[in-house]
């Protein structure tokens, strides 16, 4: 299952026309203790680059932008009680939402793991 990354520190796993989106481990380490995650409404239609979710840390709130366009099909219910999952397991159990891609060609503009790691190393 291919995984792609954005310059805004989101990741997306793609299987068929469904993507699972989260923030990267680097992102969570920068944000610090996460206390609340505002998730998008299931069924909402979103466009690549829209702010669809907000991650609250002790200090501040940060927007999460969807890496692709599509329809939100599912959100991670576990985050309601355990927002800290985004800290402890950002790139697996701390996923944020699933999306049905409307334009898979958008994936071509994203980075692979090697490119993202190189991007972060430059920050």
């Amino acid at each position, binding site marked *: 299952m291919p995984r792609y990354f954005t310059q*805004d*520190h*989101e990741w997306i796993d793609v299987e068929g026309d469904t993507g699972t989106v989260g*923030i990267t481990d680097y*992102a969570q380490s*920068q*944000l*610090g*203790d996460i*206390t*609340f995650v*505002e998730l998008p409404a299931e069924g909402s239609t979103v466009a690549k680059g829209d*702010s669809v979710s*907000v*991650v*609250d*840390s*002790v*200090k*501040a*709130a*940060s*927007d*999460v*932008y969807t890496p692709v366009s599509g329809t939100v099909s599912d959100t991670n219910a576990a985050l309601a009680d355990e*927002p800290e999952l985004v800290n402890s397991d950002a790139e697996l159990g701390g996923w944020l939402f699933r999306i049905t891609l409307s334009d898979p060609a958008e994936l071509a503009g994203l980075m692979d793991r090697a490119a993202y790691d190189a991007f972060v190393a*430059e*920050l």
Partner: protein
Amino acid sequence: MSDDVFPDDVSADDDAAEEVAIALLTLPLDAWHRARGGRMVEFAGYLMPVQYEGIIAEHQWTRENAGLFDVSHMGQLFVSGEDADAALEAVLPIDLATLKLGALRYSLLLDADGGILDDLIVSRWREGLFLVVNGATKWDDIAWLREQLPDAVTLNHLDERALLALQGPAAFAALDRLASGEHPLAALTFMRGGRFMLGGVEAWISRSGYTGEDGFEISVPAEAAVAVADLLCGAPEVKPIGLGARDSLRLEAGLPLYGHDLSPETDPVSADLAFAINKRRRAEGGFPGAERILGLLTSGAPRRRIGLSLEGRMAAREGAKVFAGDREVGIVTSGGFSPTLQRPIAMAYVDSDLAAEGTALSLEMRGKRLDARIVPMPFVPHRYHR
């Protein structure tokens, strides 16, 4: 995602970061913080550690043990000379006649309309009056004071000194093993200070701070700051704590932060700081803004600074509008998640007719309305050693 938490994070050493770093000032403990994993951010024109291991862990450590905070960005000023008391009373609403040797008192720098230019602590030393002012405002404060004080009074900026705060229930035990002075450390109660030796270094130590916990503030020569920080962090009760936890701790303690909860647009009565207008000064006046402030003390202020406890987990941040039904009644000036209470809390200014405890209000955050209720401050009880 947008990383607007640490927008000025310049701890990464790439070229862009170095360019920023050149424009910023560093403090005596800069390398000390970095060596301990401090994430350095811009604050009040300086690079300072926002966190080491994490804000919540550092917050809880301070509430349960003792945290060491570098507050060397704050301005340490010294006022001396003939009639220094009278000169300072012309600038501050403080009663210096009742400020005894070694005592500290909270006061306010006010403009001619009673707007708050800064909040500060005044201590009486044998040789004069020691002032600690906020870092972001210290240059303006110095300029203002130089303008206001007569020539016979000398204002020194003690910029060759560092300032540390040791805060938490174990602060006394840790410091008592290390400090010796003109009297035992135990003789200091809240808002009292004295001269001590700390690892061979002369220090002014006061029992004070901005976390709501028992604790001390320690002024030492800048060149000794590393040795003193090492000495204090050598105690098993003590860990270094960053600005992030300093902010969440002072918010829980209900303590206003200048530049957020206090500004030239706020006055002492609205800010619930009328206690800083000392009794004799209320009767006599003669301080900047006296006319307006004494009027507000009689008639009441149109708005009040209050505390809010929020439903749910989404925090309201500075700038969030406060509503009572459809009526906009105020604005949030500080807000965040309380690690101790495990819920979001906030400070806000609201219309006085809606400032009573228990009043249900809503806060607008990102297009949503968050339910909140006015609660007494401090949110977490103070544990000062009185």
